[in-house]
């Protein structure tokens, strides 16, 4: 069965520093990959997604993620973080042959941006 591992539960970083949040999944079969962001006391918001095509995908607020099939990874990066990026980030995978839309989530990584 598919599984998703987010290697860091918490990532503290200073404002304007670069950051990488790591995500690995277990199966190398055809997958769809997602990053979601959750701000305190809110629901999850879709940050970016990989469905097919270019392995580098970008969000509107400066995050990017790269699909690496050989390493079964989908790490999230941002070259310069802001205080407002403080949130919990979830990686999710779908390898859904039955087309039920089910997603498998990682455990989450809390990004703490310090001034």
């Amino acid at each position: 069965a598919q599984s998703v591992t987010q290697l860091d539960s918490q990532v503290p970083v200073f404002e304007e520093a670069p950051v990488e949040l790591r995500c690995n999944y277990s199966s190398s079969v055809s997958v769809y990959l997602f990053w979601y962001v959750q701000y305190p006391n809110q629901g999850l918001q879709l940050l970016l997604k990989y469905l097919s095509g270019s392995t580098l995908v970008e969000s509107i607020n400066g995050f990017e993620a790269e699909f690496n099939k050989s390493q079964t990874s989908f790490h999230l990066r941002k070259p310069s973080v802001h205080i407002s990026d403080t949130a919990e980030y979830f990686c999710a995978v779908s390898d859904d042959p039955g087309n039920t839309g089910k997603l498998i989530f990682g455990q989450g990584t809390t990004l703490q941006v310090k001034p």
Partner: protein
Amino acid sequence: DAGITQSPRHKVTETGTPVTLRCHQTENHRYMYWYRQDPGHGLRLIHYSYGVKDTDKGEVSDGYSVSRSKTEDFLLTLESATSSQTSVYFCAISEPSGTGRLYEQYFGPGTRLTVT
């Protein structure tokens, strides 16, 4: 905004009592999902629905039941709440793309349930 609301937003209940959480959507989406979120576990799927009266179990369905009598409402019931069901519950929707594939989901604001 995917037009998803959840009610109640917060609830405290006692062990052994029944509890029903409601998810309401305004966009007529066919697929709806219930997750629970717990520290260290991310989100785990409880049940999902692929149409009116069509539901199936997810990863952590024991102790939960669901019903969908209308497209816009998906109800999650804890028949006899236990302390292990203290959690934050999220509803989500999805809609097939032009190719018929399901991809991303969109989430409601969540319900924080405490079972004492």
